[in-house]
């Protein structure tokens, strides 16, 4: 088989032009292949005796999201009949099964070749490749492979999860090239065991510098079940470098998405504090039911949308509340700097950077005015962490708390 790299760039809009260009280019490539082929002595029967050109289409399922997907797909599938070139072969690679391409027009069936997901044995063989110490890695896989395969069978996800775990597994070993015997395996397992359960619940753990330092300073007698919350504490402390005003904006967005707009007046009164007195009412049977229904609805609809004005109003309320709470914090100078005009432009800039980070997304326009509405995408956990870092009493402002 010969591999040639040919770069052709042409712009065509119509399928008829595409086919003409394609036919011309393919013919020239085949001519080139024929001329390069050495004219040798009589070939034996087993050797291939022709020139084939394969067009490979990857990620075919993405075509279904195109505008004219039905004609595009029929066109792709019938490309062989349209071009009528014997040297052409078509290979389609798809992540979805063939029945997702059935259409009532123009569907031609192809020879299916199915690639099943790897079994546990396949995964073991794949992960063992290129390992310097195969026996050691094999004993590691004996411990982790089966529980992890219950959540996912994808090689990339498993190998991402296994590399830090293997390092942890080998920690008590002084010599990484040693072959473990039964005694050693038991010791390694008992050291490693508390780490299995928490790591099953993580998708992607990027160890940052401060967290690894904190790990080494940690008391080693702590139980493994608290490890998750420790990571959480580190997380809130690490804070991915958000400025204070950005944090307040994030919390305001979360509140705006979470609470219905009608509650704003009662929650954010002129002093900026929440009036929790009103809410302590005796909960009757009906109101408990209503609250459950409301909770169900909240679960269903997800975070709501809000216009920019509401976001800014809430932002101003809680920052002024923060002013009144911590007057001797020096951060207030940052907030007050530049006067009201400065604060506004700062906020809009922060809003766009939060949108870029996908903490806030555009949720569709208001039907009456046409202005864009936004939606907050942070989880309650993250909002609480951010609020805790600011020492802001977020739970007091949450509806239904």
């Amino acid at each position: 088989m010969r591999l040639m790299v040919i770069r052709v760039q042409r712009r065509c809009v119509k399928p008829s032009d595409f086919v003409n260009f394609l036919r011309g280019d393919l013919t020239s490539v085949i001519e080139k292949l024929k001329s390069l082929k050495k004219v040798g002595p009589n070939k034996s029967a087993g050797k291939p005796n022709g020139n084939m050109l394969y067009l490979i289409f990857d990620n075919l399922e993405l075509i279904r999201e195109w505008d004219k997907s039905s004609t595009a797909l029929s066109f792709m599938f019938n490309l062989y009949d349209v071009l009528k070139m014997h040297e052409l072969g078509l290979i389609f690679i798809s992540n979805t099964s063939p029945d997702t391409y059935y259409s009532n027009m123009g569907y031609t069936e192809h020879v299916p070749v199915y690639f099943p997901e790897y079994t546990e044995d396949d995964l073991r063989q794949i992960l063992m490749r290129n390992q310097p110490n195969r026996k050691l890695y094999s004993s590691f896989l004996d411990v982790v492979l089966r529980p992890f395969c219950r959540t996912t069978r994808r090689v990339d996800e498993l190998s991402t999860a296994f590399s830090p775990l293997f390092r942890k597994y080998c920690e008590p070993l002084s010599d990484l090239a040693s072959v473990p015997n039964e005694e050693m395996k038991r010791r390694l397992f008992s050291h490693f065991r508390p780490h299995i359960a928490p790591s099953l619940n993580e998708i992607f753990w990027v160890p940052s510098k401060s967290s690894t330092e904190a790990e080494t300073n940690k008391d080693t007698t702590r139980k493994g079940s608290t490890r998750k919350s420790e990571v959480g504490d580190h997380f809130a402390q690490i804070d991915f470098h958000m400025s204070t005003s950005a944090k307040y904006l994030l919390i305001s967005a979360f509140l705006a998405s979470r609470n219905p707009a009608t509650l704003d007046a009662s929650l954010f009164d002129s002093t900026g504090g929440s009036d929790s007195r009103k809410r302590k009412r005796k909960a009757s049977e009906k109101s408990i039911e209503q609250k459950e229904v409301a909770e169900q609805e909240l679960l269903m609809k997800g975070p709501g949308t809000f216009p920019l004005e509401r976001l800014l109003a809430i932002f101003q309320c809680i920052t002024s509340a923060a002013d009144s709470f911590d007057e001797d914090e020096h951060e207030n100078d940052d907030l007050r700097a530049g006067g009201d005009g400065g604060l506004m432009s700062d906020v809009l800039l922060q809003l766009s950077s939060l949108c870029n980070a996908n903490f806030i997304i555009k949720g569709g326009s208001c039907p009456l005015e046409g202005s864009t509405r936004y939606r907050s995408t942070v989880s309650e956990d993250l909002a609480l962490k951010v609020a805790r870092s600011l020492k802001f009493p977020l739970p007091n402002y949450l509806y239904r708390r």
Partner: protein
Amino acid sequence: MGIENLAEKAQILIRSRLCSPNFIFKPLSDSSDSNYSKLKFIISSSIMEACNNSILLLGPRGSGKVAVLELVLSDLLEEYPDTITVIRLNGLLHSEDNSALKEIARQLCMEHHLLFSKMASFDDNSQFMIAMLRECGLAHKTVIFALDEFDLFAQGKQRLLYSLLDAMQTVTSQAVVVGVSCRLDADQLLEKRVRSRFSHRKLLFLPPSKEDVQRLLEHILSLPMDSSLACDYAAEFNEKLQSILADKRFKEIISNYLNSNSTTNHLLRFLFIAISNMELKSGFLSLENFKAALSSIQRQPKQECIKDCSILELYILVCMKRLEVREQNSYNFSSVMKEYKSVHDSFPTSDYYAQNVCLRAFEHLLQRELICFTDNRGHSQSIEFRQVKLVVSYAELQEGLKSYRSCPAILLKLIDR
């Protein structure tokens, strides 16, 4: 020559036969009643009598319409050299009038060694086509228009069809329009003014009968005695083949396969896979080859997807099924998580994972299209809150769980409720 070598040569020979439509449909040319003969008669008579004609070839996809047309055209090109020009259009590419006329002009230019200008406008091309038709008519040359996917030309205003058929009637031209379509009612799609100019000749391509299938199988799979293959090998091959073809189980396999789609192309695909399965060591076809081909073509795609799922993904599917059974027709990932939690509360297992792991499993299911979103509003909500539904039926899910290796017993219990 070793038997493997011979088997390989036989395999190559049969596979090349399966890929050439000429070989498959040639035997039809013998019978005078076949579509091949009728089509050839119509076109050749219009060539000889110097008149216009139009005809539709109709039949399910894969019945060999275009193959027969190509056979007829190649035979006619041999019989009447220099008197026929063939213009080929395809409805998938040229349904728009502009591109269709451009393509007609381009092909006419290529045939008659004229320079084709890409900048020519629609009117230029149209006038050129009419002029060429007149010239060809005066020179007693026939232009044959082969319109594939004819029903796509009948969409919209049908300008191309009208201008073509109108030109044929007004100008002294000799043109034959052959339309090929998979829609059996393709002629009903034509507008009144187009239909009046179109003759009502139709040729139906029916799927082959049982005898035809048998004859076709023998024709394709029997090795010729006079080729480069050793005579005794070919004879033994054909003998073994005959015993397979006569076998009742083989007939059952074939009729089972052709039940879903009885067109010739469908059968050819099956034979291709069966021949590729031939064991070179033994050197001969066996019934097992055909059985293996049947199971590799007739698949249960959703079952295979379910078999590929991890156990957490199965949990999510079962929770979604339970929500649907409770007639909660609109639910999203958060509701599924709630159900997952309640299942775990009533039957505590070690398979209770955090939300982010479950979300990843949920995304895998979306990618495999076992579940899908019900809203097409776009992506203004994150995945956890968009409404989803199951795409796989309950019976398939149940079947898949039963055949899943090491499926947790709790899932089987839950799905039975």
